[in-house]
């Protein structure tokens, strides 16, 4: 009896030990990016399913200590069916506690944060390298280019874009409607990043392109680096021609890079054309929109009202388009006169 009891109490302990190992190994927070690159992230879904199944198993076992043993494929608990008495209750109680602990840990950790943890496993050097790479179009489009499925850089770039938009709104319009403009900025940037990524992922699915959702998010996020640079410069120096040059050069470079990477991962001319045309159009038009949506606010609002407490740097910003317009007009007139 002692040996049998020892065997039985040893078996649940071994089962718990095995469960611990399973959780430790499967729940490792840092996953090698190499493995992640060409899958659709299904390893995470499997892990989530496995944990869910284990959690359900634990709860079932803990509740039906006597009768539920037959439902499990785990043969060790069949013996519990007939076991009445102190040992059974004690073991079941401990199993319940362990299971509850494991389940609550699994829920609080793995369901929430640690699923995202591998996407944030970067070094500052890598982030800097990727930022610079996002402006350099790749030449080799016959071989699928590697995209790092990382979310830290894109997330920070989206927040930076929000801050730059805010800065631009302040120097052009500001004191009025500041709060709603903040919400608009955040909504615009995040909406673009998430929405266009989802749309492009859907198109990529239709066109049989080899790209996962995280990779698409990452690619588009790093493509916003060009937008950040352009807007940062042109919100401070208000010349339309300068903006157009930046739009073509900087925006064009980052678009070319994204397009080249997508092309390298798609087969078929029509599919490549659809994907790349859509992405290029959306990306360039977004930059145009960001620039002009907040310039119109300048011209519209400042024509109608001007409070007595306008800070001086706003007056400077307002005068520059007028100055540049005046300069253009006079030069045009001068050229017309000389001709």
């Amino acid at each position, binding site marked *: *009896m*002692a040996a049998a*009891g*020892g065997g039985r*109490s040893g078996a649940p*302990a071994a089962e718990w030990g095995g469960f611990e190992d399973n959780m430790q190994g499967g729940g490792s927070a840092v996953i090698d990016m190499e493995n992640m690159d060409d899958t659709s992230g299904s390893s995470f879904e499997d892990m989530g399913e496995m944990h869910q199944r284990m959690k359900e198993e634990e709860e079932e076992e803990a509740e039906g200590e006597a009768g539920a043993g037959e439902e499990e494929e785990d043969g060790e608990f069949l013996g519990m069916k007939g076991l009445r*008495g*102190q*040992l059974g209750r*004690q*073991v079941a109680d*401990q199993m319940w506690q362990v299971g509850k602990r494991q389940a609550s840990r699994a829920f609080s950790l793995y369901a929430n*944060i640690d699923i*995202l*943890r591998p*996407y*944030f*496993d*970067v*070094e*500052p050097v890598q*982030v800097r390298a990727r930022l610079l790479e996002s402006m350099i179009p790749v030449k080799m489009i016959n071989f699928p280019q590697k995209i790092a499925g990382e979310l*830290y850089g894109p*997330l*920070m770039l989206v*927040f*930076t874009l*929000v*801050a730059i938009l*805010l*800065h631009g709104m*302040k120097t052009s319009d*500001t*004191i*009025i*409607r*500041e*709060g*709603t403009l*903040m*919400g608009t900025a955040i909504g615009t940037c995040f909406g673009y990043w998430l929405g266009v990524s989802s749309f492009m992922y859907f198109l990529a699915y239709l066109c049989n392109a080899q790209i996962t959702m995280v990779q698409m998010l990452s690619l588009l996020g790093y493509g916003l680096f060009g937008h950040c640079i352009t807007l940062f410069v042109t919100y401070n120096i208000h010349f339309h021609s300068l903006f157009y040059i930046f739009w073509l050069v900087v925006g064009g470079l980052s678009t070319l890079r994204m397009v080249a990477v997508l092309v390298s991962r798609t087969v078929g001319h029509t599919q490549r054309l659809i994907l790349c045309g859509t992405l290029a159009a959306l990306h360039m038009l977004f930059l145009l929109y960001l620039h002009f949506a907040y310039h119109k606010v300048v011209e519209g609002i400042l024509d109608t*009202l001007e*409070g007595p*407490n*306008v*800070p*001086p*740097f706003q007056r400077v910003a307002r005068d520059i388009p007028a100055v540049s317009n005046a300069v253009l007009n006079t030069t045009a007139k001068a050229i017309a006169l000389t001709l």
Partner: protein
Amino acid sequence: MAAAEGSGAGGSLFPGLADVSISQDIPVEGEITVPVGSHSPDEDYSTLDEPVKDTIMRDLKAVGKKFVHVMYPRKSSALLRDWDLWGPLVLCVSLALMLQGGSADSKDDGGPQFAEVFVIIWFGAVVITLNSKLLGGTISFFQSLCVLGYCVMPLTVAMLVCRLVLLAGAGTVSFIIRLIVVGAMFAWSTLASTAFLADSQPPNRKALVVYPIFLFYFVISWMILTFTPQ
């Protein structure tokens, strides 16, 4: 009875070595006293019985001590050890109240609404906390919220100063004064929160954690700097 209690206590302390020789139904019950921390029930009763003034003063002292820690950011762990969110709440509410410009005219809001400032501060703090946890930080969620909230204090002081300066007039001089004050307080906030938060990160990733904090305080400073009363 004593034997049953003894075997019950033994079974709870050493689950793997449960007493397997019990073959009959002996219900196991009784108090299991754990030797460590046995004074805490007494402490609870004593803090329940103390006068309200003592409770409030103790909490106020704790909050005040944290403010001092923010003003002179040394690498101490007192801010992290006993976190509380009273300070951040008070700071956030006072900042939002001061930033409210307020007229009811639809074109002329004058500034962000109370709710906007509140949401931005707390949402920003939550995002930074999640980011630092995802990057491998050892700090807990509420500790990080506590630090970020307390480090808004220099910016609240800057807002106060800006309001006072704007009472005197809104010219170039006042703008330059406000710019200098807000800039200095922004740097102070960022340095203070970095001193507390960056220690909990792996050493080569400090820059990754500092950047969102920089952005967060930059946005708040920008809101303060461009505020004009109506």
